[in-house]
């Protein structure tokens, strides 16, 4: 809770700084289609699996943008659901909240947890754009860079302890670099994340193999097919901290479609590998985002 308050204090401080930096008339909206990205599994502006350096919403430096989202991933032995909301301020700061549900369904009984046993995780995120410009600076290879923090709290502390996890909450820190290469119609992102999370925190933090932060990579590469449609692939490495429960890297093939500036749909084929002893967790990822 102390960590959460500290993170919230940081976010409020950043907002104040951004507000003071640019006084004057507010203009909401006005960003170009898809250039704010979509909302990823942790509620941050990005692709599906990766957090990007872009700031969520269609606001420019002169305004405020916001999104709500719902995401589901149907896997052979589990279901994942998430919903949340995010705010973008002056294309500079993003704050987000997502509530994730990792539903073990019938598999819960096989794991001895009980049928339909579900882990819930709250993810509070804040992101600050620190350098570069992904969209306008097309005469430079320098990407837009943002730093972010995600405070995560899982509601199944007792089970996490039982499976060898060390904590039911944790904080991820990341640095994201994103660039739109208009000349090639490409969108590229590379993000480094310092984390102790097991399956992104759905199975807690730290474990018998490792209880330290490790540096993980997540990235996206997409091709703009039309101004409304981005198709691509993503990859996300994972720490594999738990002694008994192996975790694999995540990957997906995605298509993000902006119906307009208020609604976008992301569909992906996600491969999450082995999850809690069940191998081959591949399935459909579907996410709907509405906002301005």
């Amino acid at each position, binding site marked *: 809770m102390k960590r959460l308050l500290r993170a919230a204090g940081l976010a409020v401080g950043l907002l104040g700084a951004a507000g003071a930096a640019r006084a*004057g008339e507010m*203009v909401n*909206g*006005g*960003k*170009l289609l898809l250039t704010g990205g979509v909302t990823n599994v942790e509620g941050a502006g990005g692709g599906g699996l990766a957090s990007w350096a872009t700031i969520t919403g269609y606001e*420019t*430096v*002169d*305004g405020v943008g916001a999104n709500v989202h719902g995401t589901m991933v149907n896997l052979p032995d589990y279901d994942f659901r998430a919903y949340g909301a995010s705010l973008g301020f002056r*294309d500079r700061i993003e704050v987000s909240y997502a509530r994730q549900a990792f539903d073990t369904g019938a598999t819960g009984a096989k794991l001895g947890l009980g049928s339909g046993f579900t882990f819930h995780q709250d993810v509070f995120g804040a992101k600050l754009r620190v350098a570069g410009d992904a*969209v*306008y*600076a*097309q*005469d*430079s290879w320098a990407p837009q860079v943002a730093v972010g923090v995600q405070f995560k709290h899982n509601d199944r502390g007792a089970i996490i302890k039982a499976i060898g996890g060390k904590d039911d909450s944790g904080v991820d820190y990341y640095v994201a670099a994103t660039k739109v*290469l*208009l*000349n090639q*119609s490409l969108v590229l992102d590379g993000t480094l994340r310092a984390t102790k999370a097991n399956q992104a925190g759905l199975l807690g933090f730290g474990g018998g193999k490792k209880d330290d932060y490790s540096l993980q990579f997540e990235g996206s590469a997409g091709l*703009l*097919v*039309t*101004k409304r449609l981005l198709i691509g692939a993503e990859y996300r490495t994972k720490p594999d901290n738990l002694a008994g429960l192996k975790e694999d890297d995540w990957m997906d093939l995605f298509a993000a479609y902006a119906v307009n500036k208020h609604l976008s749909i992301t569909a992906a084929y996600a491969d999450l590998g082995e999850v809690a002893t069940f191998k081959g967790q591949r399935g459909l990822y579907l996410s709907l985002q509405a906002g301005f």
Partner: protein
Amino acid sequence: MLATRLIPTLIAAAGLAWAAPAIAAEKPVDPYTVSNANAGAQPFTGDQMLAAFHGQAGVARVVDRMVDLSVADPRLAEIFHATDLERLRRTLKEQFDYLLGAGVDYTGRDMKTAHKDQGINTAEFNALVENLQKAMDQEGVAFRAQNQLLAKLAPMHRDVVTR
């Protein structure tokens, strides 16, 4: 008679544009140095890009359509109301022709000077980009080629947006 013809020629030779407009309908602007560097980006080499825009005739249609859309666009009404549209159409066509490799010279002002008193913000810059995208769509310019031109124009955000 000779003097009135000679003076503009001398000024042009010195690299200064004569303040009198080339087309009667254009309003005069403050004198400035004419240079292709004013176009704000290096042109494409080869003839592929111009072909993708259906030649100079296609570029003219795209520019006219973009200006028409922008004049009628409530987001841009304030800016375009105060703009010399005759001059804008001519210089934009030159600029796009030049950038797309048509071998045409750009005789307009640099982006900073041309926009310095317009108080354009990012949302307005983007609104113009959207109108350009619509105009290119209507002309049937391939999406890849559209983005290649936009890649040349996007950095001009730095000089065009002043607030």
